[in-house]
């Protein structure tokens, strides 16, 4: 008896499902409303950065609020974009097939339980205010929808984060949410017919909505992966070229080949400041390495250090060499090494093709990658750690602390002097914490040294005596920044500071030419405390070594560097040999 009853129930149940199913216009109408929501999500995704949290995995407060707004809007719309359906045969028995769950489920699934519950609550509230028998229970159901989806989010986080955008998860979550919702409605209305009528359409519409929307966002993952995959593969191929020790032209040509194949652009060229180094692709019959750069636009760009994009539309790449040249647009990215433009990477496209944005972005990344590689290839030593050490040496917190204490003491008796020194200290700090300039003129470095000495003189009073003399013709000679001051600081720190009064410490700085290519900087103190014969320790030895390495690497030669000669208790002499490099005034270089 029981079984027959069950079978009968199931049969009638199914009949009614079928009935409602063949009211297919209901389904399609509701699905069209789903498309409205889908469009909203699509537009939001396209124009708002709020969804970027899916890639970044950090949700800022502002983004959270935007998402809350969006999902609540969707959910509320889901209530209003509903279709009335008749329940059974009675004329005034009706129900609304709605797609309220979509917003709440998306909120919870993508943003976690907090977002889900907030959205569900808000949308549920709107539903509640709309009245009807099921007002309260739908309020509860929607809130629960957000919560359940949020729980799914947490579960995914713990057990399988990769499934976040899986349509199966989306579907199952919506299914569960809808089931819960229907149970609640039944509990209040006790109307089985109602349930039978609305379940399948609502389930269908809501899950399709959630799946579609999740699908849009799924692309984030794929896109990100695709881009990084591409970049990585290029990087790998490039790295293998750099490892080989071939000539510049050969390496450049190989690189150009790789870039062309990865980007699919018509032609790729490398240039230095004057001529083409490599050329690969369409137009290579008349473009080749060694060609002087004649194209005015490119030449003009090289001289002014700006990135140039000849879009083939407002400006066209005119090839002077051949009328048949297929190249029409060009994107030029400059390769800057140590703030100086050394050359360019040019991507060309032919007449009938667009220049994909992604290739342009890629070009810029490639240029900086290449610059680093060239830099690294030039200086065989581990440049990264060397630069780190250099940067560390630049900022000496002890000096600033001591200087401030000294100035503070002077404030009591001579405020004018104290203010002057504060100004000097401020200048010193600005220099030392500004981005690395690496090379400055000798004149600039000496000015900096003098400022530093002003403050040290105050600390040591008459226990310190300094002399600086240098060859004026070397005013514009380039040298690594801060090195002169560092060595003098060492001489004072480790030498002069050790002298017992009334002895006076003397630091003698002398800069002159040895010949036309070589200059020497000598810093001598009269203390001779650099090396202690008894313990065999050298004070500041590590610093000297670092500076020596730095100089040798920067100029790639053993001719230059630093040497320390110490006669214990008599003198310490630091000799620095540098090449004479005199540059004209250029943008980006510190000159006085």
């Amino acid at each position: 008896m029981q079984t027959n009853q069950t079978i009968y129930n199931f049969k009638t149940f199914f009949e009614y499902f079928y009935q409602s199913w063949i009211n297919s216009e209901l389904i399609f109408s509701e699905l069209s409303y789903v498309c409205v929501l889908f469009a909203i999500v699509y537009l939001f995704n396209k124009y708002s950065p709020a969804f970027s949290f899916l890639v970044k995995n950090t949700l800022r407060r502002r983004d959270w609020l935007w998402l809350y707004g969006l999902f609540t809007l969707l959910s509320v719309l889901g209530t209003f974009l509903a279709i009335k359906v008749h329940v059974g045969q009675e004329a005034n028995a009706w129900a609304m097939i709605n797609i309220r769950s979509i917003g709440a489920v998306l909120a919870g699934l993508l943003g976690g339980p907090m977002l889900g519950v907030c959205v569900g609550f808000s949308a549920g509230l709107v539903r509640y205010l709309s009245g009807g028998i099921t007002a309260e229970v739908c309020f509860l159901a929607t809130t629960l929808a957000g919560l359940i989806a949020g729980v799914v989010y947490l579960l995914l986080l713990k057990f399988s984060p990769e499934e976040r955008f899986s349509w199966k998860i989306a579907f199952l979550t919506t299914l569960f949410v809808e089931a819960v919702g229907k149970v609640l409605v039944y509990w209040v209305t006790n109307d089985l017919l109602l349930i039978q009528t609305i379940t399948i359409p609502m389930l269908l519409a809501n899950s399709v909505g959630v799946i579609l929307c999740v699908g849009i966002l799924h692309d984030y993952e794929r896109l990100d992966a695709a881009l990084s995959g591409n970049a990585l593969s290029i990087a790998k191929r490039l790295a293998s070229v750099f490892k080989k020790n071939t000539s510049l032209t050969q390496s450049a040509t190989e690189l150009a080949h790789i870039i062309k194949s990865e980007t699919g652009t018509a032609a790729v060229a490398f240039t230095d400041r004057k001529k083409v180094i490599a050329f690969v692709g369409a137009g290579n019959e008349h473009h080749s390495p060694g060609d002087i750069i004649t194209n005015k636009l490119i030449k003009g760009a090289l001289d002014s250090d700006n990135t140039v994009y000849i879009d083939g539309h407002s400006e066209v790449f005119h090839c002077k060499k051949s009328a048949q040249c297929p190249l029409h647009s060009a994107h030029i990215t400059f390769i800057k090494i140590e703030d100086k433009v050394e050359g360019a990477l040019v991507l060309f496209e032919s007449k009938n093709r667009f220049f994909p944005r992604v290739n342009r972005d890629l070009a810029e990344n490639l240029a900086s990658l290449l610059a680093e590689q060239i830099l690294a290839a030039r200086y065989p030593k581990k440049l990264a750690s060397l630069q780190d050490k250099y940067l560390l040496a630049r900022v000496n917190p002890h000096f600033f602390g001591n200087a401030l204490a000294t100035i503070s003491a002077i404030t009591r008796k001579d405020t004018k002097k104290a203010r002057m020194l504060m100004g000097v200290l401020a200048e010193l700090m600005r220099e030392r914490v500004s981005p690395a300039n690496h090379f400055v003129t000798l004149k600039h470095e000496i000015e900096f040294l003098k400022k530093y000495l002003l403050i040290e003189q105050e600390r040591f009073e008459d226990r310190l005596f300094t002399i600086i003399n240098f060859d004026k013709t070397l005013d514009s000679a380039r040298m690594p920044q801060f090195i002169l001051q560092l060595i003098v600081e060492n001489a004072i720190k480790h030498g002069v500071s050790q002298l017992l009064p009334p002895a006076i410490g003397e630091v003698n700085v002398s800069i002159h030419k040895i010949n036309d290519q070589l200059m020497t900087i000598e810093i001598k103190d009269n203390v001779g405390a650099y090396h202690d014969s008894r313990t065999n320790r050298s004070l500041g030895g590590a610093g000297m070594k670092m500076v020596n390495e730095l100089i040798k690497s920067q100029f790639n030669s053993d001719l230059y560097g630093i040497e320390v000669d110490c006669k214990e208790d008599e003198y310490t002499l630091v000799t620095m040999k540098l090449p004479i490099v005199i540059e004209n005034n250029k943008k980006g270089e510190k000159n006085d």
Partner: protein
Amino acid sequence: MIKTLIIEDELAAREELLGALRKYDDIEVADQCGDLFSAMKLIRQHKPDVIFLDICLPGHDYDVPTQDEDWSELGFTLLDYMEVDEHQPHIVIVSSYSRYTLRAFEENVLDYLQKPVLDERLEKTIERIREQFTEAENQPAPFPDRPLERIPVYSNNRVRFIKLEEIEYIESRGPAGIYVVCEDKEYYTELTLKVIQKKTTFFQTQKQFLVNPDAVLEFERVPDTSRATIYTHSKNKVPVSKGFKREVMQLLGLKEEE
């Protein structure tokens, strides 16, 4: 009146402290100096109740590797040479850095002031000092008695630390001062014979002489006198007076032939 000394190498910092202490009527700054040796001298001379001591005094202790070689901690060295049993002042450390606080705590200093010294902070220090002098009449600061391993000497305008094993003998030359004699060189020091004798195994052979037992090569009686001479490894001669002869012989394990 609480007598103090300021031991600080930077003139500006010294004057700042001086100015700040001026407003306390019961604090008298008896003297000031800027290096280790002058400090030793002044402490002996003035016997202050409190000294304001800067840790970073001129000089570098090569035997002790410091954190970043920026400055040495010579101020602490001074504490090593405080004469136990003699007058010991309370110590207030004044330093640009806070990194010496732990060591300062271990050394039982009275207070630790960080430069630049603010008036309100100094106020607290003065309170502490006053407390010390009201409780019991000049309680001596508890200084741990440490054995001497090196002697700080003057060498070419710098502080140098001579290891005991390099020293042959120590001679007090009256107003000229105390000299540490090594194999090849001799150096001036501010340390007193008394302290050295107390803290080392050096023995006295005469009022002005202390000898390193490991440096003794020969002991020879001076004929027709009750005196003797000690010869060191580098052929230096150290007189042994009548009063000390017996002890010296005992120490050297020599039998009296009378």
